[in-house]
């Protein structure tokens, strides 16, 4: 991090857009959808000033493919959308994986299924981490929970995308996108990928022609390519898991939550601690790679877990798969729209604590 600039008071969506530009992302392609319109609007206003380009596409199918064409040249490029638009991009996500191209996509998720509502939800967890497109692939999925983290993780998203030649998804929701908070913007040292990368599509001047493809017909080549992708995912799982733990050391009950719910859980846990309950929080910051090994280790020291999500039970499956078999896992969830209050969660935590501990 170079010198920090002064604090600004801004909406989450704008924090993302600001971070992207400060990270050197000068190209944005997107299609309007609530609750993330502040991102394209900010980009449309600011990118021309830095010599970049904002283009409103005719659909999210077009946006993700424009992203693909730009990403192939090696520049930092981003799009953002919400549920229905992200669904349309799934084909493109799969091609990004097959083609091994880096880019950043933001999903400020809204309720579904269908047209749904514009309120906050975490119902896109499965779509994000299990893959909604075809084939055996992964996205890097980052789950910020504050304005500052939206900013920081957007920058991180570009770095990880380049490090692994993968699409990185920043998964937020309507609350995170709309809430106004003070953040400290900063500019990373590296604001562009390495210009010498041997796969960049720039025109074959003085070198052999290159191709970006995901089609492998020669005997065994497709399998080889897939093993290569898997090896890359294994490295990612080894080296770049991010997780926040809070008061887990002596916890008798660990709450597992991500994104905006984790933020509400933090207040509930403070209250629970004040009331004498030994409760901790484990907050996955990378949803993929999921902090499964950390959970497993924690499961040897604490037996009781409560998973809280703003959906009807998605991440809880990964938590159960990660924990030792004799751990007990309770789930609290509700579909998006009505956000649980710290009081709601305090009550759930107290009841669960009483039952389990």
């Amino acid at each position: 991090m170079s010198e920090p600039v002064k604090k600004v008071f801004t909406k989450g969506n704008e924090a993302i857009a600001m971070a992207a530009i400060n990270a050197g992302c000068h190209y944005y392609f997107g299609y309007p959808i609530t609750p993330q319109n502040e991102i394209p609007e900010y980009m449309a206003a600011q990118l021309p000033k830095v010599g970049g380009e904002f283009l409103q596409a005719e659909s999210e199918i077009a946006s993700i493919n424009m992203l693909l064409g730009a990403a192939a040249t090696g520049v930092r490029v981003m799009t953002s959308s919400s549920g229905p638009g992200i669904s349309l991009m799934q084909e493109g996500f799969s091609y990004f994986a097959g083609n091994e191209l880096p880019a950043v996509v933001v999903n400020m998720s809204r309720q579904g299924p269908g047209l749904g509502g514009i309120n906050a939800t975490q119902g896109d967890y499965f779509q994000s981490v299990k893959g909604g497109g075809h084939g055996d692939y992964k996205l890097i999925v980052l789950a910020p929970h504050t304005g500052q983290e939206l900013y920081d993780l957007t920058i991180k998203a570009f770095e990880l995308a380049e490090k692994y030649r993968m699409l990185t998804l920043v998964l937020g929701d309507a609350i995170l996108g709309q809430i106004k908070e003070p953040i400290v913007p900063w500019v990373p040292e590296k604001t562009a990928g390495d210009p010498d990368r041997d796969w960049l599509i720039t025109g074959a001047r003085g070198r052999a022609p290159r191709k970006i493809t995901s089609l492998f017909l020669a005997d065994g080549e497709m399998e080889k390519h897939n093993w290569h992708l898997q090896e890359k995912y294994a490295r990612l799982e080894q080296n770049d898991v991010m997780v926040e733990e809070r008061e887990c050391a002596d916890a008798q009950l660990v709450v597992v939550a991500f994104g905006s719910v984790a933020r509400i859980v933090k207040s509930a846990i403070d209250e629970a601690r004040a009331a004498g309950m030994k409760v901790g929080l484990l907050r996955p910051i990378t949803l993929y790679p999921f902090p499964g090994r950390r959970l497993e280790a924690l499961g040897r020291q604490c037996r009781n877990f409560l998973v809280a999500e703003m959906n009807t039970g998605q991440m809880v499956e990964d938590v159960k798969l990660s924990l030792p078999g004799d751990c007990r896992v309770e789930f609290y969830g509700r579909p998006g729209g009505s956000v649980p209050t710290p009081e709601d969660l305090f009550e759930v935590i107290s009841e669960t604590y009483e039952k389990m501990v």
Partner: protein
Amino acid sequence: MKQVFKRPESMTDKPFHFCPGCHHGIVHRLVAEALDHFTLREKTIGVASVGCSVFLYDYFAVDVIEAPHGRAAAVATGTKRVLRDRIVFTYQGDGDLAAIGTAEVIHAANRGDNITVIFVNNSIYGMTGGQMAPTTLLGQRSTTSPYGRDNQRDGYPIKMTEMLAALEGPSLVARVAVNTPGNVKKARKVIRQAFQMQIEGKGFSFVEVLSSCPTNWGMTPVEANRRIADEMIPYFPLGTLKQRDLVDTF
């Protein structure tokens, strides 16, 4: 001895995989000749589509990005917006461009994106084995219109050139054929003009090439060439429908 015919520099020496009598090979060559003509090989980026021409990168000695089926125009837009001094072209079949990719090509054209689109209309889905295309002629049999294309059920063969010529964005919109030496000559000129439009920054240029697919038409190469004259050209008339001024270099 004077050499009168050689492989364009913009092509590799890999033998085509196309069926005998297929026009894809001719169209590839015409595009490569245009690139050579303007010495563009080292600054060109091709965007391949999904269809029999998916292996564009095997035959063109230029950088190539393979787009998802139908999305070539959007991919090309993304590339060209970043690398404005490079030459970006797409090469798409009729299923790719006129069915699944209709929205992408219309909006690229309407924005006047400074790219060149080569549209190979063979009135069939070649790669997947001869299914009906949006350009399949009325009465034409295909594996999914075994009793002939019926406009009551399937609508009419789509005229992309006429549609795109109605837009403000494009600099050049033309339809050519390569079924006779005379037509090849005209096609060569129009494809060259299309790239010149891009070089001169005049915006979106589009060339539809009426093409053969002897394999899926169930015809010999000679019969296929004749069919283009007898059945396709009457419905898909040749000509340049829209053209901005160019500095003539011929």
